[in-house]
């Protein structure tokens, strides 16, 4: 698995995509549990949107039946500037080795390119967290637990573009 080993050297991962939506719709899709539980892994992410506020993503019943713990990801809100920028810490809880790496940092940037088109950039800083890096960059098939940010964000795009928030 040379690629995985190589990928772990990466300390910052960047994902940028364009979505036909308003900045507000993207902000809600990221921060509101009734939206964020509908794409990607279908975990429910709750944010207390102020500096120092808590972030917690929980597994649904189906995920728990597959052996995932109830609490999936925790973190802290560092900066919340709706609907433009969200900075948070992010720590995976489904594996003791991941938990031991401590928090990583995720920055969500929402920029309106032209009317109705938003540029979403997700930057995941993974300094000193090679196991997190391998998990979120995973290109393994989704049914094998792979997917990572590529899967989550492409699914977010599909959801938001097919629904009016």
């Amino acid at each position, binding site marked *: 698995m040379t690629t995985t080993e190589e990928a772990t050297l990466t300390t*910052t991962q960047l994902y940028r*995509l*364009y979505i036909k939506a308003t900045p507000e719709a993207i902000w809600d899709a990221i921060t509101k549990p009734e939206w964020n539980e509908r794409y990607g892994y279908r975990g429910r992410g709750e944010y207390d949107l102020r500096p120092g506020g808590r972030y917690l993503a929980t597994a649904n019943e189906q995920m728990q039946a597959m052996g995932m713990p109830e609490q999936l990801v925790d973190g802290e809100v560092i900066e919340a500037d709706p609907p433009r920028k969200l900075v948070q810490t992010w720590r995976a809880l489904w594996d003791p080795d991941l938990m031991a790496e401590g928090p990583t940092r995720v920055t969500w940037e929402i920029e309106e390119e032209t009317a109705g088109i938003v540029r979403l950039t997700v930057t995941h800083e993974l300094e000193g967290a090679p196991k997190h890096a391998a998990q979120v960059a995973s290109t393994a098939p989704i049914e094998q637990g792979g997917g990572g940010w*590529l899967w989550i964000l492409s699914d977010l795009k599909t959801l938001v573009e097919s629904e009016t928030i």
Partner: protein
Amino acid sequence: MTDDDRVFKALADPTRRFLLDRLFARDGRTLTELESELEMTRFGVMKHLRVLEDAGLVVARRQGREKLHFLNPMPIRLIHDRWIDKYTERQVSALANLKSELEETA
């Protein structure tokens, strides 16, 4: 030219694929670092990076005094979702599995 055309055009060149591979191995590199791995003038590398940036496959960000280049794998994933997923997901992953099995036993 559509966004997809830009991605395909950008990928249709071995030097640019090499640059993407280098960024996949380690992200956030300067032009100088990337240039040192290629038998090419600085200007030539800049031109290739520009094509990759136009296609959205590379994002350059200023960090302090340096301009760092990051791989953005998202456009490839979205093309995959639209074209490959729809028709040939199963066949492609079967082929990919076969390839990795053969490579492991080799």
